[in-house]
């Protein structure tokens, strides 16, 4: 069976409908367990005090903010190359979820930064690239809304997504590119496997990361189904009018 079969809207809806309650349920369970564990059962950090508890929201949200954009990039490339409507609609569906993740990362980062750095905001490479990523999300959503023809909108938003990917990459690797700024290095470097946080904080953090990832997946499935139905509804209405 080819993966491209799922580019058929009916097949996509038939496959994802039974999956959504399970994925959403596991996501909520992971979030409840991870956040409860992190908030109630972990100790304060010797330097950060109780603000270390913000890590369970900030890190998974930032991770998903960037990953959401990469998912949109992949879907946009599939649209540009193979013209599968479901991929364009999946990219559109992911954007509002991605912007919420970006907003959570920015808000929690500012709230943590004020007591720890003595400032809500600094024009640090990672923070700045993240703010630009947020603006790209806004522009992406606005562009979809502004253009009436869905294929033209999909083309233009795909191009915007490719351009914005530069900032998604910068958001992730800015700390490595420029060895300056206030933002510390990544807490969980996957490439090296060398953790900079102890197990007592790491385990609930991983549970929260899984929860955020599954929540994103569930919401993208639900929202893509909605976009497919909206498109079908418009097509039917146009046919009935003519």
């Amino acid at each position, binding site marked *: 069976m080819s993966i491209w079969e799922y580019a058929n809207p009916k097949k996509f809806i038939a496959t994802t409908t039974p999956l959504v309650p399970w994925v959403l349920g596991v996501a909520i369970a992971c979030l409840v367990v991870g956040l409860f564990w992190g*908030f109630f059962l972990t100790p304060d950090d010797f330097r950060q005090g*109780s603000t270390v*508890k*913000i890590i369970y*929201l900030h890190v998974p949200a930032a991770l998903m903010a960037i990953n959401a954009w990469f998912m949109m990039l992949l879907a946009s490339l599939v649209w540009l190359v193979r013209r599968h409507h479901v991929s364009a609609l999946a990219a559109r569906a992911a954007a509002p979820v991605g912007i919420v993740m970006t907003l959570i990362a920015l*808000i929690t980062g500012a709230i943590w930064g*004020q007591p720890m750095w003595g400032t809500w905001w600094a024009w640090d490479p990672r923070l700045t690239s993240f703010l630009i990523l947020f603006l790209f999300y806004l522009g992406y959503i606005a562009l979809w809304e502004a253009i009436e023809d869905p294929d033209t909108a999909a083309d233009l938003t795909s191009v915007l997504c490719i351009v914005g990917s530069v900032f998604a990459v910068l958001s992730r690797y800015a700390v490595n590119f420029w060895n300056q700024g206030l933002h510390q290095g990544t807490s969980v470097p996957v490439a090296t496997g060398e953790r900079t946080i102890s197990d007592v904080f790491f385990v609930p953090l991983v549970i929260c990361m899984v929860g955020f990832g599954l929540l994103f997946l569930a919401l993208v499935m*639900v929202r893509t189904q909605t976009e497919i139905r909206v498109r079908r*509804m418009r097509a039917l209405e146009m046919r009935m009018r003519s």
Partner: protein
Amino acid sequence: MIPDLGNYAAEVMAAYGLSILLLVGIVAVSLRRGRKVRTQLADVETRRDRANV
């Protein structure tokens, strides 16, 4: 039974409150719009079927 958050209670509670609000918001909006569009599509399909009869 909220743990003792020391001097940073306001910051931690604000971070959790706002984040949970945003997460619940995007889930609620997505599910509600999905349900609404499904009903609207069913209406349009019924109208189309009636027109075709």
